[in-house]
């Protein structure tokens, strides 16, 4: 049996759903699954990691880990890797995982497959596929040379498992002296929105240039709120100042694969399609029957978004309330 180390990710004392996805992938492979958890006062989260199948949990707590920082996470994760000697190390391709995992790869002198959207583990063999050219193609990644196989997995790309509860994990505290660091996170400035991030949300409702103003995005937001979805935007909408760049979906924005993607008044330019075409279910609402977005849509509504979107919101609300 091989060993897999999952890097747990928490923010503000809450584990991310992507961590459970990784634990599911690891435990289903029949390998011994451990997790490493870093933070300040986060020991209460080990229970949940246990419920999702981790049999040992490396716990690294320090006041300096209150905020994520690449430098301290790298030190901590490297120590956990040293103790666990895993065959495979998995992290989420989140703003956190994508930041420190390449540094881990550099320190270990091994390869990293990043932003994988498909992953299978048989024995200690990690087989992954990932998009290239923003999803215009996908490739399989072959690991060369020796050492642990490292991968970051895109949130929502592989399903989340159910908790398996009936088992206990060994918690192994690791203490590290975090001294001589060259970087320091001084503060975290929260976004002013309670909505989920486009790259992490299970559903995304996006608007394009046709929304005509930042205020008009309200109808998009209201539909998103009914679905618990994130709000996305085309580059034209971002360049016009209707939305911030962090909401841009596409080749030069975020590449997303939610379960549901609703494109409202978006033409479907190649750069936009690149960012969302792997979504599981795509809805397009557009007045132009020739708009390229319809070529990738599972459901197409030829119509005026200003009429359809508010009505759709009401219909979905009814379903949700049942």
């Amino acid at each position, binding site marked *: 049996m091989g060993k897999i180390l999952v890097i747990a990710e928490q923010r503000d004392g809450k584990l991310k759903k992507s961590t459970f996805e990784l634990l599911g992938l690891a435990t289903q492979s029949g390998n011994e699954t451990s997790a490493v958890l870093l933070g300040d006062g986060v020991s209460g989260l080990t229970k949940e990691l246990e419920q999702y199948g981790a049999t040992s949990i490396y716990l690294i707590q320090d006041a300096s880990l209150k905020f994520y920082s690449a430098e301290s996470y790298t030190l901590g994760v490297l120590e956990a890797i040293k103790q666990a000697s895993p065959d495979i190390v998995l992290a989420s391709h989140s703003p956190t995982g994508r930041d420190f995992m390449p540094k881990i790869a550099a320190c270990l002198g091994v390869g*990293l497959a*990043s932003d994988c959207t498909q992953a299978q583990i048989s024995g200690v063999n990690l087989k992954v596929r990932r998009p*290239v050219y*923003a999803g215009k*193609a996908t490739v399989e990644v072959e690991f060369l040379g020796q050492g642990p196989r490292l991968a970051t997995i895109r949130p929502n790309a592989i399903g989340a498992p159910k908790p398996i509860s009936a088992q206990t994990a060994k918690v192994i505290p690791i203490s590290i002296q975090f001294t001589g660091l060259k970087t320091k996170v001084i503060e*975290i400035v929260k976004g002013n929105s309670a909505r989920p991030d486009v790259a992490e949300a299970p559903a995304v409702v996006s608007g394009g240039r046709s929304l005509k103003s930042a205020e008009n995005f309200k109808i998009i937001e209201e539909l998103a709120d009914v679905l618990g979805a994130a709000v996305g935007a085309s580059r034209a909408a971002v360049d016009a100042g209707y939305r911030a760049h962090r909401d841009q979906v596409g080749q*030069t924005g975020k590449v997303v694969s939610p379960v549901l993607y609703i494109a409202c008044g978006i033409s479907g330019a190649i750069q936009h399609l690149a960012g969302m075409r792997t979504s599981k*279910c795509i809805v397009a609402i557009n007045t132009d029957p020739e708009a390229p977005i319809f070529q990738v849509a599972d459901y197409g*509504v030829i119509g005026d978004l200003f009429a359809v979107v508010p009505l759709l919101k009401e219909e979905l609300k*009814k379903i949700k309330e049942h």
Partner: protein
Amino acid sequence: MNIYVCIKQVPDTETKIKLKPDFTWIDTGGIKWVMSPFDEYAVEEALRVKEKNAGSTVIVVSAGPTRVIECIRTALAMGADSGIHIEIPETADNNMTAKALANALKKEPANIGLVFTGKEAIDDGSAQVSQLLAGFLGFPYVSVVLNVEYGAQSVKCKREIEGGAYEIVETALPAIIATQKGINEPRYATLPNIMKAKKKEIKTYKTSDLGISEGDQKIKFKNFELPPPKQAGKKVSGDPAAQAKELARLLHEEAKVI
């Protein structure tokens, strides 16, 4: 102070990707190559730092086949002072690329102040090279940077994280900074500057000059696939009220996504 910018040449975003018949790589025939959009912000940021610090120099470094010299020229036309081209194969992975860049920088004079890169290249989209480079050079790094406040010994970066939040990260210099859209508006090269760029020096290294060998390749892409063509979707007809009702039903009962 010397400021370095590591840039990558990538297919233009309009490119329709085609594959080689044996699926080992994309078919690069007919592709229009451009500087990766996030690298344009890196070049611009370096030029702005230079403009505020008399006596500074901006050196652009790019690893790749001979064609990437074009991309270096573009950066020189924007205002960079000189270039370094590292000849490595099209199929080099992030590790080999970063090691080659690091080893080239190690041959440079010691007064490296800052190294800029784009936050990711839009071809393989791995977002690894800046961190790997940091690892090989022993420099700190900050990724996905939206703004930088420059100090004498350190810089404060605004780093984008999830959900519209951001971090303020202070880092000692020299450091690697990976730029995100929003940090600046890249300038266009003017005709006189395009002419001037033709005379600027570009140094070339081979991998053997930099001690790079096949063993530095840690992963390999294979079995390229195009996304399967989508089945024609369902059109939802009727007036807006009927469309909304039917769409909601389909999402709930047929697609089961709600």
